[in-house]
């Protein structure tokens, strides 16, 4: 088996006019860096799970993607993160949902897979588990970036008035 890796950074309406040349370069570079990081793990004999963790950790740390730092904001202006990982060799799996202060959700998911009898932990329980397992914890504001804050501000403009919420609003 020759090692191989595939990645994604999200799908959607990627409006060309909104993607400046500089931002496109940042995104392409981040995707390439993630591929290189994961492939290097595989080339050095690392496991597929190690490669997935290395790749996604790098993407979580890149503020241009909706994961980890740079994650979108909830209606009340906070961040709630989710992640999951699965090992095809034994169908073992781990996941965290709705975490707010775990710096790397994918690392938390892997820790659930490897160091707990469960598959998914959610909310405060997941935070408690991550803390007990020594994972790096951050303030919720760690995940906010100026770009994300600006998008949130725009979508909440006219809040409290009868001005219809922005197109981002998908709630009745």
């Amino acid at each position, binding site marked *: 088996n020759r090692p191989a*890796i595939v990645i994604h950074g999200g799908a959607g309406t*990627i409006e060309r006019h909104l993607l400046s040349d500089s931002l496109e370069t940042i995104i392409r570079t981040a995707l390439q860096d993630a591929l290189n990081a994961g492939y290097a793990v595989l080339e050095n004999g690392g496991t597929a799970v190690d490669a997935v963790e290395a790749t996604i950790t790098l993407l979580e740390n890149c503020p241009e993607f909706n994961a980890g730092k740079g994650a979108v904001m909830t209606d009340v202006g906070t961040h709630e993160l989710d992640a999951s990982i699965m090992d*095809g060799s034994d169908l073992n799996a781990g996941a965290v949902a709705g975490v707010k202060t775990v710096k790397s959700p994918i690392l938390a998911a892997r820790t659930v897979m490897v160091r707990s009898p469960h598959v998914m932990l959610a909310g405060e329980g997941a935070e408690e588990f991550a803390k007990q397992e020594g994972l790096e914890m951050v303030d919720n504001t760690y995940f906010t970036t100026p770009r994300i804050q600006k998008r949130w501000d725009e979508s909440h403009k006219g809040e409290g008035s009868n001005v219809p919420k922005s197109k981002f609003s998908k709630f009745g």
Partner: protein
Amino acid sequence: TVGCVALDKDGNIAAGTSTGGMMNKKYGRIGDSPIIGAGTYADNETCGVSCTGHGEYFIRIGVAKEISDQMKFGKKTLKEAAEYTVNEHLSGMNAQGGIIAMDKDGNFELVFNTPGMYRGYKNATDEKVMIY
């Protein structure tokens, strides 16, 4: 949302997904990303899958495991399974999104029904990053 599927030298497959979820979400809304079988799945006998898109539909269909099951029980190729699930099943429900998947032989599919998907692949002979 970000995701990865890897195949190592021992032929093991792993998949992972991480996300901030939906902007302006309320009430503790969770999408498909943390749900095994919906946003993430891996089985050495078939493939690894990571998804991105309108999570509610990916959960209801069980997208990641549906692709694996079509290979396991329906004897489909990865290409046939991935293209059916995204271009017929999801599109048939007006559900938008995409998947990355790789099988035990290193064949991979990057299928989406949206205008774009940040994606890339790297193996011993080739590598590429794409957006649209």
